[in-house]
């Protein structure tokens, strides 16, 4: 049963982390670190939160290879679309 009990503690821990990160990202947005660094910081925090949710809440950690392949495959292709279109329309 102890394994079961610790589950709840893990979830509450992740919850606290997510709440803190949300507050952090809002606070960080008020800092003026220059346009590029602000974007990078906000996206980094968002990415960290996303991986927290995926790993613990969606139990991605304990899933089999096939699911990992799907998750990373989709994320990679979304990034590919974004990275390859940006230079064309991005810098006028």
């Amino acid at each position, binding site marked *: 049963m102890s394994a079961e009990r610790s589950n709840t503690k893990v979830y509450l821990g992740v919850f606290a982390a997510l709440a803190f990160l949300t507050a952090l990202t809002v606070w960080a947005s008020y800092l003026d670190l220059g346009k590029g660094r602000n974007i990078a910081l906000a996206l980094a925090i968002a990415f960290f939160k996303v991986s927290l949710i995926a790993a613990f809440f969606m139990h991605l950690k304990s899933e089999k290879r096939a699911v990992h392949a799907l998750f990373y495959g989709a994320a990679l292709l979304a990034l590919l679309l974004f990275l390859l*279109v940006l230079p064309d329309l991005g810098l006028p």
Partner: protein
Amino acid sequence: MTAAVHREESFIGKWIFSRDHKVIGLQYMFTSLVFLLIGFSLILLIRWQLAYPGRPIPFIGDLLPDSLAPGGIMMPDFYNSLGAMHGTIMIFLGIVPLGVGAFGNYFLPLQIGAKDMAFPTLNMSSYWVYFVGGVLMLSSFVLPGGAARAGWTSYVPLSVISSGQTTWLLAMTFLITSSLLGAINFIVTTLNLRAPGLTWSRLPLFAWAQFVTGLILLFAFPVLQAGAVLQLLDRVAQTSFYMPQGLIISGELSQRGGGGNALLWQHLFWFLAHPEVYVLLLPPMGIVAEILANGTRKPIFGYKEVAGSFCFIAVLSFMVWAHHMFVSGLKTSLSYLFMTTTMTISIPSIAILTCFLLSLKDASIRFTVPMLFSLAFLPMFGIGGLTGLPLGFTPTDVYLHDTYYVIGHFHYVVVTGTLIALFGGIYYWFPKMFGRSMNMFWGKVHFWGTIVLMNLIFFPMFIQGLAGVQRRLYDPTVQLHNLTVQPTNVLMSYASWGLLLFQVPFIVNFFWSIFKGARSEENPWQATTLEWACPSPPLPHVNFEKVPTVHRGPYEYSVPGREADFWPQNEEN
């Protein structure tokens, strides 16, 4: 899984809203064949206009409403909608549902020894969403505003300001949803419901092709869904995702907020559309692999190379899309990248073709009708693939882009490549689907007529392309540089009407044989894959009497030391 209690279903349950993958496969087949015929007949009207510009269309001319073809003479707007709907219907309503929807739904579960798809209800709804999308797309001809007229690629801003596009976009959303539902089913079924012993290296190449196609559909279609929603909002809600600042449309300055970018739609569209053309290509390659192995009585040469090339094509197809945009204002640095990835993706296609050609060596070739179609696929797809090289290579693409060379290229790949292979698939699997075989004499008549006439239609397109004839021209004779090659249009038009005649034997043969064809036993072609291990037509809902177990690779033909020259996958000894 307790044995399915077999309650007697009503006609509606059994045929209309059936959850059996075989019935859904047949529904897809009949609907897509009807749509192929409709799409084909649209282009026959265009062929008259291209051969004899401005002259009234003989028989059908006066049947057409005056708003479209006054006095039987086709108007440019009607011409553009015929061209746009021909492209859309043939690709999204005809070939993909036939290759993926019909053959995939019917034979993927059989080839992996499963009772049905992973999610039968999802599978049924995918057909009915496709059906609604198809009806909506066709109804756009009669709705006010007429059919879409900005090409099957519906480039903005033309597609935002011209009429008929809203129904096109709505119908496309339905078709995209249907393909996504189908893709989810294909991936989970292939991953999860394989018969015991059916490892990945024993999976038939047709099943490999359908699985990889499912993955391509899954990752590529949602991006067009996003693009279509943005275009729909641009049309309906006056937003300007794609509409640049300060457009002057027929004299007046447009009041839109502006700020959008016209190239964004091309990026989103081609991010889907290039993987989509590989969705058109992979299932037929799977079918050709099956038929070639069976017809040459020899394992396919390089099974691992072909399966690996399927996956390599699937991955690379997401990195080549901008070769459609070399002259559209794409930055030159990007065009170098996309030129290289496009050339790299030609390698796996050549590898697959080489493996198929090397399968003919040391073989014992039977010239059955499916084999005729598969053998014809090889040179025809060869021309299609090779003519893709000058289009992927930027210096030559500058001249050949948007000319008839491009149309010749993709028709050689899609018509004399994919469609011929799908015809071969119909002749090959007809006995399994209906328990009767099609008439082989009329099959050969259909084959020779179709192949010869298709070449008469599509090969002159390269000559026109090199002469610089642009595509989608209502009246080519207005441009002086098209005059010399104009006679080819007359030849191509007569060939296309002849092609319609040669489809009649196929249609009659197809429907006549369902009821009156000669009875055929379970394994008429003496093939080795699992779909031949069940009665034909397979048992409703359970397919196999007992779940087959797989003991060897998919193409064990002419195994030394065995008297029968084929060794089915599910036989123990």
